[in-house]
């Protein structure tokens, strides 16, 4: 037996979770070091080792697995610090990534500058070649035009090259030939092709993803290369694994090849934790609700499995790789209350961020943030924020909220209550986006709260949506890092089929065989159990939205596959159209390498006997009232706490409202029943 380590690098803190051979979980938090995130990672590991009474070298020397979530790619895209990319593309089509299919956000905003593409037009170089939709060659690859384009790239000295040809999803021969020529001339460049990154029909999504891959490839290569070396130097002899946007993990080499696939590496750990808690028995159907300082991530776990989407837009770049379906709301504890131009109270989209932060941080913030409102309402203990490592300035909060209250002509508590209620409504709408608008009724789900701020809002959000049960883990603030210890190795593959109608079974069988061979090859270094899952994206002839249909338990013949689609359509939209043409657009295959999960046990302490309240606090819940405060760490197994009450630990505060009943589950979470008619 050996240690396993999960590392989650967030905006402010780097969280380290160590699972010990005897089933304990040890947690450490270090400051994130934006210039080189690997500094913070090594600081955190040293701190965790200290808590275990070990040296960092001794800990790393007996560690079997490290799983890492990184925001390096996301930050590079958001901050415009990605690599300069040269693009080779089919002659006559060099504006695909900038045209964005003719779409623009914000329908009524006609005073908007267009987004700057990741590759400027002058570096999008035409190559004379053309494939047809059936894979036949319309125009052979012209070596003279290819060489001229590569000369241009050499002169520009680009560190990364994206090769994007039309219909390469069907026939990649020209891309492969061009990539070989580029690698020969530019041996140090990061070279990537659209047929390797996303062999899928629809050129905007494929090209945009490939260009994003080239833009973050060198960034990820540098960062993960450096981190691997530093961990090896510090004594680690195992494989560094990286969690990807689809929630599975991969080796460093694979994360570099598919660098754009790390775009959701940060929030993926949270979803992995929700999946692991579903397996632990929390519930089969969960809504993961991760409320941070500037944003809130919401994701569904259905029947124990995460939900995937067909991509994500990060910093204006469309990345169409299979990704966890995470709805990100631009609102969190740092969102600022204000009076909008219509004279109504509004919250956000402005945020106080980490610096200056809410007024109560005392770093110069003067506008009231959600956290300030919560402090004014008495929900937070100013002396026990982050386990007492930071003291909150309640007077500064009161002053900030008072200014807003005066402008609105209402009392201070009413203004604070208004901010609190409004952000709850925004959060509830975010959950609606993740559920109702995807055809899912949230009322059968359990709302799983994590992130430091969620516990104050989550029961009100549940009440507004008619959700009866809320779970708040005691380790809510480091749950993402813990989740990383509970994932599997995963390779997601896809091949577009592209028939006009019907299913070409020979082509489909060939695609699955090819994908399985490729996936197993990518996991050839792994000696554990490997399983394979098949599915297909299908639709009716004239529709535009495809449905993912699992095919593992379906006979591999056209009629059975079509019938599986009709049934899936019926289940989703209440009807099937059995007289219509069925189109199988993409074949998908997941190759999964099973890793042993970390134990959930030991996430918190369990009191021997039911704890009484450690005191009372004056809070505003419609009116001012004194309510009991319980120490989360002292609660005994199955102890119940009736709202109104507060349950708090160093890093997590839970507000139980009238009608809420919390029960402490010894496995490490507060299980809250939200009764009908509870105060929203």
């Amino acid at each position, binding site marked *: 037996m050996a240690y396993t380590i999960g590392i989650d690098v967030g905006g402010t803190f780097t969280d380290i979770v160590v699972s010990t051979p005897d089933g304990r979980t040890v947690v450490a938090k270090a400051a994130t070091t934006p210039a080189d995130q690997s500094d913070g990672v090594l600081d955190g590991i040293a701190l965790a080792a200290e808590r275990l009474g070990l040296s960092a070298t001794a800990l790393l020397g007996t560690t079997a697995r490290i799983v890492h979530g990184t925001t390096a790619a996301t930050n590079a895209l958001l901050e415009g610090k990605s690599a300069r990319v040269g693009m080779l593309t089919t002659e*006559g089509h060099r504006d695909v990534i900038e045209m964005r*299919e003719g779409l623009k956000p914000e329908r*009524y905003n006609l*005073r908007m*500058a*267009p987004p700057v593409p990741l590759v400027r037009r002058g570096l999008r170089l035409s190559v004379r070649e053309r494939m047809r939709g059936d894979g036949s060659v319309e125009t052979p690859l012209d070596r003279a035009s290819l060489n001229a384009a590569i000369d241009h790239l050499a002169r520009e000295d680009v560190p990364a090259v994206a090769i994007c040809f039309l219909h390469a999803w069907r026939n990649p021969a020209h891309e492969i030939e061009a990539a070989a020529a580029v690698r020969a001339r530019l041996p140090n460049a990061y070279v990537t092709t659209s047929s390797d990154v996303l062999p899928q*029909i629809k050129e905007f999504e494929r090209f945009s993803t490939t260009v994003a891959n080239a833009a973050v490839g060198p960034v990820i290569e540098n960062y993960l290369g450096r981190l691997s070396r530093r961990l090896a130097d510090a004594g680690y002899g195992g494989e560094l694994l990286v969690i990807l946007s689809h929630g599975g993990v991969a080796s460093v080499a694979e994360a570099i090849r598919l660098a754009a696939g790390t775009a959701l590496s940060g929030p993926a750990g949270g979803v992995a934790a929700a999946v692991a808690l579903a397996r632990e028995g929390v519930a089969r159907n969960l809504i993961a609700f991760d409320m941070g300082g500037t944003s809130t991530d919401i994701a569904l776990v259905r029947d124990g499995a995460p939900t995937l989407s067909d991509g994500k837009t990060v910093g204006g770049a469309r990345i169409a790789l299979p990704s966890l379906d995470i709805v990100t709301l631009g609102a969190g504890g740092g969102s600022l209350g204000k009076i909008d131009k219509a004279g109504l109270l509004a919250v956000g989209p402005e945020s106080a961020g980490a610096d200056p932060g809410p007024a109560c941080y005392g770093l110069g913030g003067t506008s009231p943030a959600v956290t300030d409102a919560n402090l004014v309402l008495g929900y937070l203990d100013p002396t026990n924020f982050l386990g007492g490592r930071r003291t909150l300035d309640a007077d500064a909060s009161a002053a900030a909220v008072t200014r807003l209250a005066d402008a609105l002509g209402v009392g201070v508590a009413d203004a604070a209550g208004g901010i609190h209620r409004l952000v709850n409504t925004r959060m509830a709408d975010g959950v609606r986006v993740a559920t109702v608008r995807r055809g899912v009724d949230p009322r059968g789900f359990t709302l799983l709260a994590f992130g430091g701020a969620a516990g104050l809002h989550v029961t009100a959000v549940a009440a507004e949506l008619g959700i009866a049960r809320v779970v708040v883990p005691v380790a809510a603030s480091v749950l993402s890092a813990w989740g990383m210890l509970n994932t599997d190795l995963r390779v997601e593959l896809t091949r577009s089929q592209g028939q006009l109608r019907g299913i070409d079974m020979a082509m489909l069988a060939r695609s699955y065989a090819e994908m399985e061979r490729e996936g197993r090859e990518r996991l050839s270094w792994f000696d554990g159990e490997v399983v394979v899952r098949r599915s297909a994206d299908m639709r009716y002839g004239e529709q*535009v939205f495809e449905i993912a249909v699992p095919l593992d338990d379906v006979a591999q013949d056209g009629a059975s596959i079509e019938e599986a689609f009709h049934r899936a359509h019926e289940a989703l*939209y209440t009807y099937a159209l059995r007289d219509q043409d069925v189109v199988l657009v993409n074949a998908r295959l997941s190759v999964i390498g099973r890793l042993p999960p970390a134990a959930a046990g030991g996430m918190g302490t369990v009191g021997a006997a039911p704890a009484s309240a450690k005191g009372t606090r004056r809070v505003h819940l419609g009116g001012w009232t004194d309510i009991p405060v319980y120490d989360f760490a002292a609660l005994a197994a199955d102890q119940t706490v009736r709202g109104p009450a507060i349950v708090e630990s160093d890093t997590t505060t839970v507000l139980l409202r009238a009608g809420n009943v919390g029960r402490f589950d010894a496995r490490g979470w507060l299980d809250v029943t939200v009764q009908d008619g509870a105060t929203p």
Partner: protein
Amino acid sequence: MTDPITVAVLQNRLNAIAEEMGEAMLRTAYSQILNSSRDFSIALIDARCRLVAQADHIPVHVGAMPWAAKANAERFPNPSPGDIYLLNDPYRGGSHLPDLTIFVPVFAPAADGTPNGGQLMFWSVNRAHHSDIGGATHGAYNPAATEIWHEGLRLPPIRLTENGVLREDLLEMLALNVRHPRDFRGDLAAQIGSAKLGEQRLNAVIAEFGATVLAESIDAMLDAAERHARGTVATWADGDYYGEAVLDDDGFGKTDIVIRARVTKKGSDVTVDLTESDPQVTGFVNSSHANTQSAVSMAFAFLLDPDITKNEGAFRPLKVVLKEGTIVWAREGAPVTMCTSHCSNEIIEAIIVALAPACPERAMGGWGRRMRIALNGTDPRTGRRFIWHMFQARPGGGGSVAGDGYSTIGEWHSAGGIKFGSIEVAETRFPLVFETHEYRPGSAGDGAHRGGYGGDMRLRVEATGNCVANTAGEGVVHGARGILGGSDGAPHDYTLLAPDAAPRKLKTKEINVPVPTGSVIHVLSGGGGGWGDPAKRDQADRDADRREGLLT
């Protein structure tokens, strides 16, 4: 008096209901124009026919919805719970025939608390553009129409239900009069589903907050939006302004049709007078009354803050003066199908041009005109007939204070809301090869901030079986207008290059143009209008355009 916090919470809740109705529509609609191009809109309208909440879909619909609700309420002053209403006639509250509007009434609880049993509170409304509405040609757009009966089936406000049950006989009659009855029924069902969802959600809000609090809060949120709008308008320079925009022709020999906007801005009020516009014409570029009201609202909204809550209050500062018999308000019987694009685009442009000197930081250069092509032929790979609608090679958008315009983004009336889709998918599904689909260098109107570029598309048609093209649109003669000293964008230039034939320029309103196998349609679409004096353009921006190969 309701408290400002409840008002804010309720405004968020009502907007969320409209969004959810839109999402339900998107996921359940059958035809491509709805589920891909999203040509539908949602509105919640109160018992006084005031727009309370809407979802941002197609801007040209939304200002028209209260007029439709008024026409319906006048015809059916005493609706009952469970009723569903429908209309499309442009002379009875509609905009043009393919837009079908569904209304579901929502009521306060009865005195004894029974939900939906009391006074009328809302209309839950869904408007959607159907792919066919009968008439002389497929797909509703008929450049040869000289009267509305050539354009399709006319529906005054009608009740689709009897005692709360849909009248199957009536639905059959409607479906019998359109070319794709299955799509028609499917899309209509999706519309009804979306409006009924709005009814359910509104009932829940009424139950939670009470009808009185809700009604008072709505008054407060409309007043708030009015304050926001007036606060903006008050910052514009007072004065009497004039602007015009010109349509190429009506397809029947009448050319250079002028929209004339006299705009008076005083304090926080704006009056738009279009009465001097040219008389109505023979072809289908005439506008219906509701469509013109909507186009004027859209122009006004484009000059306000984009995040203003689009409800009745936001439009209170605006007064519209129209005269029947003009191109912007055709007399009953005239064809109007093109009007949601043209002359809507020209109405918007005339108003923006007029107000540009009053609020130069808010006005924007002209956005492109729509010129559509539909091909009807046989796919030699399958032997099946096909119809293909061109959405590629879109025109450019206008420059603004924020910077240069978006390239290949579309027109004023859709404003970047319609996706042209994948060329790879189009080539797989249709016998077409897109030899070129790129920006059209030199097409943008110059300015301190230039317009966006139009497109350059060479489309090779491999269809057989007497393939023919229809066109419908505008902008071959008149390009998108530059403002405040900026230049106009280049107009469209479409050419048919048939094998062994001389190049043939395509006009904007043609039907049954033969397109033999191997023909190339060369589309050069218009650029957007420039904003501000070209002499003030940054040299660095000019150098960048040259470096990126965007100048000719």
